[in-house]
């Protein structure tokens, strides 16, 4: 899934990013660096208040950075208004609340919204909408009104609407946080498929098990980077994971509880199988 960084320019080339909300005591983001390349799946993890959502908005060109040494999104300068507007075309952002992303009175019209905003000809919009509805399993819901959709269906509709505009990178801000297990599965599957097709993805979450399959993990703590590297490195540091306040699946919780009782397992297991292996192998 990852390409060699030397050959292509990064999709996100961010250095020294700062952001502070008006009237806030502390920086929401402080001196943050981030590079994301074509085809990469980067997970950004952090607890509430770590700056994750702020980062999502900045990456999408939806907010102006307070300062940065460099802030390029798909080659557009985020420090300049024109750059941010252009970035919104290349960077797709999916938010947490499915209800508050759907604008139109039926699924089909909502998926078309982005393309209408870009003044595509009607026939092209029609074709692209058909493609998206098929791709995300929404064909039968085409004329359905938003209030008749389940959480997972709403979020898939929102995702279809975001991806209807051809994007170079997709940023997702805790997209499954408000969904039930069925909805969560639907959305995670759809996102993994998009990643599998080569779309670069920045996946922001508080849950460790959603980082599975990521090429890299960046952990945020109070607006700064607490870890950046491959997933395995983060999983090996149980104390750091605990400190970051992330959500662990049961296997991970058990590993931490065992560590507290003096029985350290090699690495942090996230699944039952990994746990059984670790238990079998440990003293």
């Amino acid at each position, binding site marked *: 899934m990852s390409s060699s960084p030397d050959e292509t320019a990064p999709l996100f080339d961010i250095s020294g990013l700062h952001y502070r909300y008006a009237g806030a005591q502390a920086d929401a983001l402080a001196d943050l660096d981030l590079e994301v390349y074509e085809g990469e799946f980067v997970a950004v993890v952090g*607890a509430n208040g770590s700056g994750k959502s702020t980062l999502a908005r900045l990456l999408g060109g939806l907010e102006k950075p307070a300062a940065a040494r460099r802030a390029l999104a798909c080659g557009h300068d985020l420090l300049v208004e024109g750059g941010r507007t252009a970035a919104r075309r290349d960077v797709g952002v999916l938010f947490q609340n499915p209800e508050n992303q759907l604008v139109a009175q039926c699924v089909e019209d909502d998926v078309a919204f982005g393309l209408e905003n870009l003044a595509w000809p009607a026939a092209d919009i029609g074709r692209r909408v058909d493609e998206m509805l098929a791709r995300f399993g929404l064909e039968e819901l085409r004329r359905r009104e938003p209030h008749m959709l389940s959480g997972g269906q709403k979020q898939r509709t929102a995702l279809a609407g975001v991806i209807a505009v051809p994007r170079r990178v997709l940023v997702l801000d805790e997209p499954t946080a*408000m969904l039930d297990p*069925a909805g969560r599965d639907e959305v995670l599957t759809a996102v993994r498929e998009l990643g599998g097709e080569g779309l670069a993805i920045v996946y922001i979450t508080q849950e460790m098990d959603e980082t599975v399959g990521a090429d890299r993990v960046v952990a945020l703590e109070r607006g700064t980077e607490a870890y950046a590297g491959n997933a395995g490195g983060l999983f090996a540091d149980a104390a750091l994971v605990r400190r970051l306040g992330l*959500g662990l699946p*049961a296997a991970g919780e058990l590993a931490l509880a065992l560590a507290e009782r003096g029985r350290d397992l090699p690495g942090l297991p996230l699944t039952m199988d990994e746990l059984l292996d670790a*238990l079998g192998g440990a003293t």
Partner: protein
Amino acid sequence: MSGREGVAGAAPDDPRGPGAPLSAGMSLTCGGVSFSYEEARAAIPALRDVSFELRAGGSLALMGASGSGKSTLLQVIRGLDEPESGAVLLDAAGPVGIGHAVLQREVGLVFQAPELQLFASTARDDVAFGPRRLGWPEAQVTAAVDTALDVVGLPPAHFAERHPYALSGGEQRRLALAGVLAMRPRLLLLDEPFVSLDPGTRRQLVGILERLKAAGVTLLLATHDVDLAWALCDELLVLGGGRVVAAGSWDFSTAGRRLLAANRLREPFFVELWRRLGRDPQRAPRTAAEAAEALS
């Protein structure tokens, strides 16, 4: 609820004193409860002949797919809707007579995303809403509010005068819970209390519910999280299409597992772990801490 609640009036002085812990639980029996609601002039059956028992101080996990009737059942138990047939018995008192209405005031219902109901300008005022509606004297209200805020981990000294909307999402969720706990419910109904909670608050909420259980409050928890259900509840009630498909103790025999699977519920993590470690799944630990103890 009719105006009788306010009229039936000032609750008797709490004999346990203002600082007393939340009181012992209420028993609940549902007998053949059925309920339909109207949509587009058609009657949609939401609950069909639901019967089960929950002893005082017990804890029951209510599970089932979306639309299986969990929320409806909780609201019928709380008395927000009248069942069209069958009865809800609280402490063995049936629906006829004032006794039942009084008992319903001791049933607390925490809705999904309860922070949506916050409206007052201070945390104290919001939590005090319920107790004041019960007609308690102000001193008792204050004591109840302070206790409730402590129980949910929002110490009054720091939080009582804060504006609810200035609190974080997790704090708001806990504040809304305090608003229900301040009414000293003996039966606590919770509708998916863990949805969209950050991991830290999730852990806190589990702790709060464990303490309530320990204090003797009867707990009825609707959740889709089978691991949290296993951690907190002795018994299980599974609804499917408004009907009861399983009720009683957790059963991990072959038949039991098949029933869970048929209702798209997997086994709790620790149960499966115990099984795969060659240990008795019925004796599996409920929490990571218990499991770690057993494995150390």
